[in-house]
C-alpha cells in the first residue's frame, strides 16, 4: 500500500497521515490559477510543454518537480506572463503575481531598503508609507538591521531573504518561485524553508514552487506535481498532508520522499531510454 496517493491511482480507503488522494478535485478553496490545455513550443526547438492541465487552489503550496528540461520553469514563466503559451489558456483572474528567481535579482545599484521601497513605489504606495512598510517587510524576513547594505554585502541566504521581502512588497496573492534556494547551502536552505513556510501561512499566499529537489517538495508543499520530460506534461499529482512544520528526516516524510524519488528516477530512466 502506497503512502502516497496519486491522481492516477486513487484509493479512497487510505487513511494514513500524508497518504490521501490528491485534493485536485475536492479542495474547499477556489481556483487561484487555472491552466487549460497549455502547450509551449519554442521556435526551432522541441515542444517544451504539451497539453498541461492544472488547477492551483487558493492558499495552495504547490511544488512542480521534474528532471531538468521538463518545462517546469517554462510553465512558471507562462503563469507569470513573462512568456506566452503557444496554445491553451492560463487564467489567474485579477490576482497579482510576484516572482522569485533562482539567483537574487536584487538591483545591485540600490541598498536592500531601496530595493524593497522600489517595489512599493512601482505599485503606487505613497512615499510616507514606504519607510515603515519597508522596515516591516525586512523585519518579517529577519533582515531588520541590514536595510542599508547593498546586495553584494550580504550572504547568499540574506540576498534571497531580501528578494523575498521585495516579492512580498508587491502585495501579490500568488507567488511564483523558480528554485529560489537551489544555490544555497543545506543549512541556509533549511532555515529558508522555515521562513517561507511561516510567511506562506501568515500571509495566506498561494505559492507555486519549482524545484528538482524532492525532499524540498515534501518539506514544503501540500500538493506536488511530478512532470514528465520532453514534452513537459503533468505525469502525476501527489497530496502531501503532513503536519507542519515538517522535518525531512521524519519517517513518513522520508518515505514519501523515497517514493517520489523512485517515480522521478523511473521518469528520468524512461526518458534516457
Amino acid at each position, binding site marked *: 500500500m502506497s503512502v502516497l496517493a496519486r491522481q492516477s491511482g486513487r484509493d479512497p480507503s487510505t487513511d494514513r497521515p500524508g497518504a490521501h488522494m490528491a485534493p485536485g478535485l475536492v479542495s474547499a478553496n477556489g481556483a487561484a490559477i487555472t491552466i487549460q490545455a497549455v502547450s509551449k513550443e519554442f521556435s526551432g526547438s522541441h515542444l517544451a510543454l504539451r497539453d498541461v492541465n492544472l488547477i492551483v487552489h487558493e492558499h495552495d503550496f504547490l511544488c512542480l518537480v521534474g528532471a531538468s528540461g521538463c518545462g517546469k520553469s517554462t510553465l512558471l514563466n507562462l503563469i507569470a506572463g513573462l512568456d506566452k503559451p503557444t496554445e491553451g489558456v492560463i487564467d489567474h483572474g485579477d490576482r497579482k503575481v510576484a516572482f522569485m*528567481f533562482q539567483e537574487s*535579482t536584487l*538591483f*545591485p*545599484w540600490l541598498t536592500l531598503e531601496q530595493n524593497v521601497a*522600489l*517595489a512599493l513605489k512601482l505599485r503606487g504606495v505613497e512615499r510616507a508609507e514606504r519607510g515603515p512598510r519597508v522596515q516591516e517587510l525586512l523585519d518579517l524576513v529577519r533582515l531588520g538591521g541590514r536595510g542599508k547594505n547593498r546586495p*553584494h554585502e550580504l550572504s547568499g541566504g540574506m540576498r534571497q531573504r531580501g528578494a523575498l521581502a521585495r516579492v512580498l512588497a*508587491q502585495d501579490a496573492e500568488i507567488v511564483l518561485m523558480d528554485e529560489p534556494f537551489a544555490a544555497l547551502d543545506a543549512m541556509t536552505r533549511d532555515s529558508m524553508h522555515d521562513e517561507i513556510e511561516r510567511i506562506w501561512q501568515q500571509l495566506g499566499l498561494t505559492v507555486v514552487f519549482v524545484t528538482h529537489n524532492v525532499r524540498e517538495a515534501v518539506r514544503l508543499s501540500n500538493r506536488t506535481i511530478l512532470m514528465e520530460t520532453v514534452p513537459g506534461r503533468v505525469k502525476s499529482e501527489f497530496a502531501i498532508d503532513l503536519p507542519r512544520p515538517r522535518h525531512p528526516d521524519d519517517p513518513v516524510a522520508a518515505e514519501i520522499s523515497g517514493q517520489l524519488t523512485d517515480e522521478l528516477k523511473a521518469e528520468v530512466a524512461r526518458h534516457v531510454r
Partner: protein
Amino acid sequence: MSVEAIRPGVSMGTGSRVSDLARKAWAVSWPKLLAVGIALGLWELVFLSHWKPDFLLPSPITTLSTLKEIVTENIFWREVHTTMQRGVIGFFFALLIGSAIGIAVSQWRVLRVGVGSMVTGLQTMPSIAWFPLAILLFGLRESAIMFVIILGAAPSIANGIISGIDEVPPNLLRAGHMLGARGVNRYRHVVLPAALPSYLSGLKQGWAFAWRSLMAGELLVLIPDHPSLGGALSLARTSLQADRLLAFMIVILIIGMVIDAVFSSLSKFVRERRGLTGL
C-alpha cells in the same frame, strides 16, 4: 569625563582618515609622477644630444620655467577659460545627443539595423576630417568647433549606452518586469541604472574624443578676441617660441589627464558600490 575620554579618539580618527586619504592619493599618483619623470628624463637626453638647435627644442628646465611664467599671466587663464568652456558646452551637447541616439538605437530594431553600424563608423572618423565641412557650413566661429566636438564625442557616448543596455542581465529585466517597471519606469529604474558603468566608460571615451576635436578646432579656427589654448599653441609656433609651445602642450596634457582621472574615479566609485571591483 566620558566626553573627554571620547574626544581624543575622535580627533585621532579624523587624523587617521586624513593620512588614509593621503596614502590613497599617493598610491594613485606615484605611478603617474614616475611616468612624468621618465618622460622628462628622455626629453632631457634628447636635448643634451643637440639633435635640434636649442631654440627649436628647449630643455625641460627652460620649458618648465616658461610654464611658471605663463601661469602668472592673466591671458593664460582667459585661454584656459575659453577652451574649457568650449569643451564643457560641446561635451554637454554631445552627451545629450549621444545618450538620446544610444537609447533610441537600443530601443528600436529598425534604428539599430540602420544606424547602429553608422554610429561605430562615425567613431572611427578622425575628427579633424570634419573641419573643412564645419568651416564651410559655419564659418570661422564657435559653432564650427562645437559641431566637430559633438560629432567627435557623441558616437562614443551612444556606443557606451548601447553596449550598456545590451549587457543588462536578462534576469534583472525580468525582475523589473515582474515588479511592474514598464515603459518609462523600465528605463528609469532598471535599464539605465544597470547600464551606468558602461555608460560612464562611454562618457570617458567621449571626453577624450571631445578634447582632441577641440584642440584640432582651436588650431584651425582662430577667432579674434577669443584667446584659447589651441590658439596659443598656434601663436607660439608662428612666433618660433618653442618653450611656450611646449609649455602649452604640457598644460593641455595636464587638463586632459585631470579630467580623465575624474571620469575614472567616478567609474570606480560606481563599480565599487555594486561590488564589481576585485581586491
